[in-house]
C-alpha cells in the first residue's frame, strides 16, 4: 500500500514538471501579464494599477490602494470569512462544558 502511494506521488510530480515547460520565463517584462493591452484590445489590470495609483488616491503604496480602493469588495468578503471562523471556534468548543 505504501509503495503504491509513493509511486502516485512521484508520478504527480513528473506530470507537474512536464506541464511547466511551456510557461514563459519568470520575470520577462513582455509577458502576456505585463503588457498594456491584452490580445483582444482591453486594458490589462496590473499595468493600469501601476500607472494610475498615485493620481487616483494620493498614496505612494500601490498594494494598499489596490487592496482597499480598487478591490474593496474582496476585502469586505474576507472580513466576513474571518469573523465567521472566529464564531465557529466559539460554538464548537462550547458543548463540552455543559454536560
Amino acid at each position: 500500500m505504501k509503495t503504491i502511494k509513493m509511486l502516485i506521488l512521484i508520478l504527480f510530480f513528473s506530470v507537474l514538471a512536464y506541464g511547466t515547460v511551456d510557461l514563459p520565463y519568470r520575470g520577462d517584462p513582455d509577458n502576456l501579464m505585463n503588457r498594456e493591452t491584452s490580445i483582444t484590445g482591453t486594458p490589462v489590470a496590473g499595468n493600469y494599477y501601476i500607472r494610475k495609483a498615485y493620481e487616483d488616491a494620493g498614496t505612494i503604496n500601490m498594494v494598499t490602494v489596490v487592496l482597499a480602493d480598487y478591490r474593496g469588495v474582496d476585502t469586505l468578503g474576507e472580513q466576513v470569512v474571518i469573523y465567521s471562523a472566529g464564531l465557529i471556534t466559539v460554538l464548537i468548543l462550547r458543548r463540552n462544558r455543559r454536560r
Partner: protein
Amino acid sequence: MCDFFLGHYSYWLTMFLLCIGLYGVLMKKNLVKKTIGLTILQSSIILFYVSIAAKWDATVPISDPSRPVTDASNYLNPLPHTLMLTAIVVGVATLGVAFALLMAIFNRYQSLDEQEILDMIE
C-alpha cells in the same frame, strides 16, 4: 539551455514543496501531522503566486521619485501580492477552525490516530 534553466527553476522548486506537503497528507497516520501537511501545501501555492510577479530590473511597488511611474516596467506587478495577502489571513483562520475540530474529536474519542477512530465509529 542555460536560459531555460534560469527561467524555470522557481516553478520546479515550488512543485517540490507541494509534493512534500502532499506526502505529509497521504503517508502519515496522525491527524495533526496531516493538518501540518495541508499548511505546507498552502504555503507553496502562495509562494508560486508571489514569485511570478517579478520583473527584471524592477523595484518594490512603492513609487519612487527617481523612477517615473509612466513607464510600467520599473515596478513589480502589485496584483498577485494583494490577492495573496487575503489568502494568507484566510489560511490562518481556517487553521484555527481545524484545530478546534481536532480538540472536539479528541474530547469525544480519546485518540488522534485515524485507524483507531475509524474502528471506533463502526
